[in-house]
């Protein structure tokens, strides 16, 4: 098409705007390592590397196991209460990893809820110290598996009915169908989800710090705060980014070059299989395990903290904080998804193949610790502020520091991956035939986008919106650094109390966070089933 070069420019411009923190970051790297670099290398590099690998492999495996199996049961079989389970499986995502860490110590740690329960029923129940790397794998997996579940479920439930019928006609067993057809077709989506899990693992700070585990991210904070060597912290962040890119490449390699495009999503709703006997019990176990350990027990623990310390004043205060959190998260989600759509389609419409690869670079922001993004934006913003004040005498410091725009920009930078991967995965499955057909019939890019591509992407767009929304609600270090003076968020308040060892106070905002996300998920699911019914009928 004629206008492809314009799209190359547009893609490039967007990627550049999103690269501003990298530029600030790179200029930081050019300044050389700091004075404590050799110290860090001597005492920590091995630990950072080994611990990060254990965490990524451990959490990646466990999250896939929990997420894929639950998604398969939910989308393939008819279970009583299926719709409710399907939603509950998203909700562990609403519990920030560091809160999950505190929760598990509260549940099974010394003098924890298990002990109390034991005293109550008169049995000596075991309690123990889970504050080690395996405990961390457990805690992170339970809090992060919904990323894989969401991706896998979206893919499983959209598999073409014709394929299933063909497979059944040809005598394929259930197992064969899962491993040879459903799983490979879901692979791009699952890998997208897995990538998010890995980035979250690399980015975790609160849980690792609490458990006393040295990771790249805790090392960045140690270098910056305890050793007062910001320069080396920037270098560690650079290493972390390199590590994240390596992980991304490895995982993308696993996805392979095969394309699974299919335009035959139609064929009517897939009939789910009814289960009986042992298989029904097994299905319930698969769905129930992550719900019990990732959601129900944690919520019980939060209530155990909230109830004895409850007072109405802090309840009303938390309602107000909830409103502010929702506002900020909604803005961030809309902006991020809009950016992801622009990036995806601009690069698709451009003709240069190297530019087609650029968007995946823009998504690495997910692996950079929030605190580093904050610092990069501050130091970058400083040039801007100084320039304005020297050249024009404008004092725009207030706008740059502690303003909503910079916080929103930071969220977009940080969470682009969350929005981009699910949309990209669906777009890959959709293929390009429909759009090409539309062009042949004289449609231009925009009305093809509006009338054909976006409607097909709609479930993925909603999923992306919800995921970014939840992530923003949970986000901590960026919000701490960049937040406007008069805005509080639930995650922030919860963390501040938890860090001060006041779990009874941290629990209420945490519980509100879970409730808000839960309520939204139910509304979303209700809307989805309602609108699909309306379409069918």
């Amino acid at each position, binding site marked *: 098409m004629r206008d492809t070069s314009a799209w190359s420019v547009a893609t490039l411009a967007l990627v550049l705007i999103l690269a501003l923190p990298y530029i600030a970051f790179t200029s930081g790297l050019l300044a050389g390592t700091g004075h404590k670099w050799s110290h860090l290398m001597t005492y920590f590099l091995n630990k950072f590397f080994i611990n990060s690998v254990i965490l990524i492999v451990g959490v990646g495996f466990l999250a896939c196991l929990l997420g894929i199996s639950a998604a398969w049961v939910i989308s393939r079989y008819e279970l009583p209460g299926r719709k409710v389970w399907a939603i509950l499986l998203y909700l562990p995502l609403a519990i920030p990893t560091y809160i999950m860490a505190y929760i598990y110590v509260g549940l099974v740690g010394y003098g924890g809820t298990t002990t109390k329960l034991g005293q109550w029923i008169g049995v000596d129940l075991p309690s123990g110290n889970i504050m080690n790397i395996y405990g961390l794998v457990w805690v992170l997996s339970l809090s992060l598996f919904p990323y894989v579940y969401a991706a896998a479920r979206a893919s499983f439930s959209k598999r073409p009915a014709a394929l299933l019928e063909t497979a059944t006609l040809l005598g394929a067993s259930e197992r064969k169908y899962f491993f040879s057809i459903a799983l490979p077709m879901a692979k791009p989506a699952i890998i997208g989800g897995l990538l998010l899990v890995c980035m979250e693992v690399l980015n975790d700070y609160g849980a690792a710090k609490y458990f006393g585990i040295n990771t790249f991210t805790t090392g960045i904070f*140690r270098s910056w705060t305890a050793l007062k060597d910001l320069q080396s912290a920037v270098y560690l962040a650079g290493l972390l980014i390199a590590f994240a890119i390596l992980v991304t490449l490895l995982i993308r390699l696993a996805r392979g070059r095969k394309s699974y495009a299919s335009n035959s999503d139609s064929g009517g709703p897939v009939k789910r299989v009814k289960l009986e006997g042992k298989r029904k019990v097994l299905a319930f176990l698969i769905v129930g395990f992550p719900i019990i350990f990732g959601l129900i027990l944690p919520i019980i623990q939060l209530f155990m903290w909230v109830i004895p310390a409850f007072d109405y004043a802090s309840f009303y205060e938390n309602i107000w904080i909830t409103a502010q959190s929702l506002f900020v998260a909604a803005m961030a989600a809309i902006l991020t998804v809009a950016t992801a759509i622009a990036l995806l389609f601009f690069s698709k419409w451009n003709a240069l193949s190297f530019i087609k690869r650029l968007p995946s670079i823009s998504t690495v922001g997910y692996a950079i610790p929030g605190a580093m993004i904050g610092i990069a934006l501050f130091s970058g913003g400083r040039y801007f502020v100084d320039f304005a004040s020297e050249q024009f005498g404008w004092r725009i*410091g207030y706008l740059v520091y502690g303003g909503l725009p910079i916080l929103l920009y930071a969220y977009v930078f940080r969470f682009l991956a969350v929005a981009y991967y699910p949309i990209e995965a669906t777009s890959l499955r959709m293929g390009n035939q429909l759009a090409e057909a539309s062009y042949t019939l004289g449609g231009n890019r925009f009305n093809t986008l509006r009338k054909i591509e976006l409607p097909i992407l709609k479930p993925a767009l909603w999923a992306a919106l919800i995921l970014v929304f939840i992530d923003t609600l949970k986000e901590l270090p960026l919000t701490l650094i960049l937040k406007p003076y008069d805005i509080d968020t639930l995650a922030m308040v919860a963390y501040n109390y938890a860090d001060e060892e006041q779990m009874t106070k941290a629990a209420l905002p945490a519980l509100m966070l879970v409730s808000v996300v839960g309520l939204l998920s139910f509304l979303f699911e209700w809307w989805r089933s309602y609108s699909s019914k309306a379409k069918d009928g």
Partner: protein
Amino acid sequence: MNKIFLFALILLVAACGAADKEEVTIYTHRHYDVDQQIFDDFEEETGIHVNVVKAGADELIERLVSEGDQSPADLLMTVDAGRLVRAADANLLQPIESETVSSTIPDKLRSADNSWVGLTKRARIIVYHPDRVNPEELSSYEGLADSIWNGRVLIRSSSSIYNQSLMASVIANLGEDAARQWAAGVVENFARNPSGNDRDQVKAILAGEGDLAVINTYYLGLLLNSADSQEAQAGEAVQIFWPNQEDRGAHINVSGVGLTANSPNAENAIALIEYMISQEVQELYASANYEYPANPNAEVSDQLKSWGEFKEDELPLARLGELNDEAVIIFDEVGWP
């Protein structure tokens, strides 16, 4: 026409600026409900509104650096002296010109140039299980490196600023080599890999994972008065030992406040500091938050009284900040996670 419009807009903006009420902006690392109550009382008494930005001290310092002369902050409040020294070193603070402050707060709890001042004190103490530890065998922080404590010592990780300050005080008192030897000895005696917070160490004593722990007084107060029955039980199960009473005294740290170099409302800020060190407010800190008042005239609460009087280390707290780097390096060298 356009020019008139622009002029009107400028007037409007200027008017808004002029109509600003009296205020003071505080960047604080303290996340306690009692602080908000104190700020509200201050506003009621003086009409000066207090804007509060809560975050970690390190983030706040970085924010002050970036904001430079356009910072809206008047005060920086931290939970340790080390970060205040760091802010002062980065030229982010200015002297607090107040006779009240210099006459009320003891010298060692302030910086030499009065750019920051301690508000409340916390002591780092040893708590032990009375059935498993003979208190006569306890003596000092140094004593924890003794082999009789092998596998019995609970303490959190070296990323805790409270441990960094404790190590800094050991370096200041005994020198670097002795401090390194001491740390290596304590590492040998760990009951478990350092993890969790101060409260978790006390719970681990009750559970029998170790016999004694090094924690801050104010966390013990929070444990004892916790709404969680198990926590209160853990607090009650341990006894307090004040270390180094025969020599330099127990290590203390302060939660303090500094006046920022570019404070736009310095006068209001100083008024707030003077308010916070007043006897009445200092007693509120002690009773609501189990912190020792920095103002010597303020009475300590009953909870604090029950722990007895103690001798405190007279080291000027500014030294804790100066030696913080060295402390962290020693932790890393001896493998204290």
